[in-house]
């Protein structure tokens, strides 16, 4: 069907439409390469580089079991795309992930346990919906993320979505970033609330408006050199104000320098991110080089910015009158926020573990078509967001979510735990971060039920030090490890406290205690009790931690983390995993 007449492709950006034939060509090439691999005509390593460039990751379960990462530039999905994702999850995801679309901490959607021979067909289905996996992995510009409320947020400086879109499309397949020293992650934030999480990114753009010659000019404050993992770094200012006429050129120049000047990183992979280049040559020298290259690019043409109009839905759908429903009222208090457009609301659909079942995703797609603006937005908190829900339609929308079982309250509150895919599937995952998240979630249905909605208190869990769960920016963070005890391996977590993301004032969480995995719920419960019993009025958790100090907290919590003299088998197994825990790692493909 011709692209312009395919109704599934309505509401896509021109960049998304342009990508379709290129992605379809990629699929044909990949089919050939899979054939060559099968015949032994290419090595596993050569094939690996090829498939990673196309967003296909090898899972821990071998052989030929893949994770498929779908890029969702700046988080926006049409309802038609959501339906296709639901279908793909049913048809191609495997094991206990059949029917599951997983929202990542970088606004992508992932499918797990996909068989290699099914990958071309899976990709074809994605192409039909204007979706791509191209450069979702490998040493390229990864998914460009953005504030999922941009366009409707009350605190926004201006809507950054068009600029995030232009950035995503300009760098996709761009020769300057096909073989970078390492991955490059870009984020956009529409306000100083920084929902794009700029400090932890290789490059971040914060919306700014400056008055120049009496005229208000849109632009960005550009930050560079942030990152997490074993060498966490806070991004620093590249330029205080870059007008929108120059922002793409500036990002282009930054990536050009990274590509040209960091062969050292190509040789030594553990020092390959741009933060190491900046550390090596100094920020001033780095800025100087970027500005020099930017000057040489001044005659380059860059794509026009495609502005999006936030549209009011045209609906006269019958609706229910709001009833005095305590469950609804609780959900409304945590999951609903008024838009800057009066009378309309942003609704967060909380997804435990970032997972949504196909039946739920279909129901949600229909709901946003009927009641919203026909779009869904992925968030870095691993949730989905709907917008333009009129005040009087909120109750009806909620009942629709409830029918689909996606009406959980506590969005972005304490009970809304972030976790990476972890050791269940990732080759670098030491522990089951999903297992721990599930165990902690149970607390909020029992002993800590009254704390589930606590604001400004986030738990984030990674299965290893690489921090895909973003544990460095959590109030309470965990990353997986292990400990040898009497001939057995005990899964453990390093617990960190006090992460505070605040642009230049950002402070990453500090290492606090090492805790056996099975002891963590007890430690978390006690920590929250200490907070509630000892906090000053209105004192936030991070303020409390800073005030009382780690020594006080360790005094109270360390005894709970000690293993008993005689270990029973529960300590040798990980959360959610039967059998004895073993350190079982493969060669990480994000480091390929």
């Amino acid at each position: 069907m011709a692209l312009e007449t395919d109704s599934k492709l309505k509401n896509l950006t021109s960049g998304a439409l342009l990508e379709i034939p290129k992605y379809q060509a990629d699929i044909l090439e990949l089919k050939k390469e899979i054939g060559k691999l099968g015949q032994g005509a290419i090595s596993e390593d050569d094939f690996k580089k090829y498939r990673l460039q196309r967003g296909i990751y090898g899972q821990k379960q071998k052989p030929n079991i893949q994770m498929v990462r779908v890029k969702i530039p700046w988080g926006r999905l049409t309802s038609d795309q959501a339906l296709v994702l639901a279908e793909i999850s049913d048809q191609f995801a495997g094991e206990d992930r059949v029917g599951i679309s997983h929202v990542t901490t970088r606004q992508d959607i992932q499918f797990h346990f996909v068989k290699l021979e099914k990958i071309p067909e899976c990709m074809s289905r994605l192409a039909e919906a204007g979706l791509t996996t191209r450069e979702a992995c490998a040493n390229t510009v990864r998914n460009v993320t953005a504030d999922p409320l941009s366009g409707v947020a009350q605190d926004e400086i201006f809507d950054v979505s068009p600029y995030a879109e232009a950035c995503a499309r300009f760098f996709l397949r761009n020769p300057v970033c096909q073989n970078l020293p390492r991955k490059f992650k870009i984020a956009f934030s529409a306000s100083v609330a920084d929902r794009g999480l700029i400090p932890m990114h290789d490059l971040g753009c914060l919306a700014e408006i400056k008055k120049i010659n009496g005229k208000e000019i849109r632009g960005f404050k550009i930050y560079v050199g942030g990152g997490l993992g074993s060498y966490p770094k806070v991004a620093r200012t590249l330029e205080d104000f870059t007008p929108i006429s120059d922002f793409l050129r500036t990002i282009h120049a930054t990536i050009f320098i990274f590509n040209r000047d960091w062969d050292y990183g190509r040789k030594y992979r553990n020092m390959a991110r741009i933060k190491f280049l900046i550390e090596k040559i100094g920020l001033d020298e780095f800025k100087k080089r970027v500005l020099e290259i930017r000057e040489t690019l001044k005659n380059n043409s860059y794509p026009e910015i495609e502005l999006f109009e936030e549209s009011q839905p045209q609906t006269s759908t019958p609706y229910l009158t709001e009833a005095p429903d305590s469950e609804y009222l609780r959900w409304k208090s945590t999951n609903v926020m008024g838009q800057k457009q009066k009378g309309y609301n942003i609704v967060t659909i909380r997804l435990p573990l970032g997972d949504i079942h196909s039946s739920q995703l279909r129901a949600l797609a229909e709901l946003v078509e009927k009641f919203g603006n026909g779009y869904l937005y992925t968030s870095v908190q691993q949730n989905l967001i709907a917008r333009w829900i009129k005040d009087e339609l909120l109750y009806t929308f909620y009942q629709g979510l409830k029918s689909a079982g996606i009406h959980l309250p506590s969005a972005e509150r304490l009970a809304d735990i972030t976790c990476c895919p972890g050791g269940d599937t990732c080759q670098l995952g030491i522990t089951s971060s999903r297992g721990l998240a599930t165990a902690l979630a149970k607390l909020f249905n029992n002993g800590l039920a009254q704390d589930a909605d606590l604001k400004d208190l986030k738990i984030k869990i990674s299965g290893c030090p690489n921090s895909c769960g973003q544990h460095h920016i959590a109030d309470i963070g965990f990353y997986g490890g292990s400990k040898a005890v009497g001939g057995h391996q005990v899964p453990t977590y390093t617990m960190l406290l006090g992460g505070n993301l605040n642009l230049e004032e950002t402070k990453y969480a500090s290492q606090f205690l090492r805790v056996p995995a099975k002891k963590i719920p007890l430690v978390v419960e006690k920590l929250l009790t200490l907070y509630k019993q000892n906090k000053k009025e209105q004192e936030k958790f991070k303020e409390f931690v800073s005030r009382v100090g780690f020594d006080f907290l360790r005094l109270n919590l360390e005894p709970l983390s000690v293993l008993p003299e005689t270990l029973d088998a529960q300590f040798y197994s990980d959360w959610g995993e039967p059998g004895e825990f073993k350190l079982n790692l493969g060669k990480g493909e994000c480091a390929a």
Partner: protein
Amino acid sequence: MAYTIAQPCVGVKDTACVEVCPVECIHPTKNEGTFASAEQLYIDPNTCIDCGACQAVCPVTAIYPNEQVPDQWKNFIDINANYFKK
């Protein structure tokens, strides 16, 4: 591939690396009997998961991935491995 603790650790044994290693592959630790008499700390290459957390915190730049160990200290790769063969 594993990391190696090289010459700069000799006589120092800061143990910042021990605190951050997620798989506890750096020995001896302060509460092990051999700590006082040990010349340096050692990484068990069979347990090391190449996360680099140790390198990030070493105050004397003693730790390298094996392929980056400076030539004059390459013998420390075996020294580290041999410590765990005892």
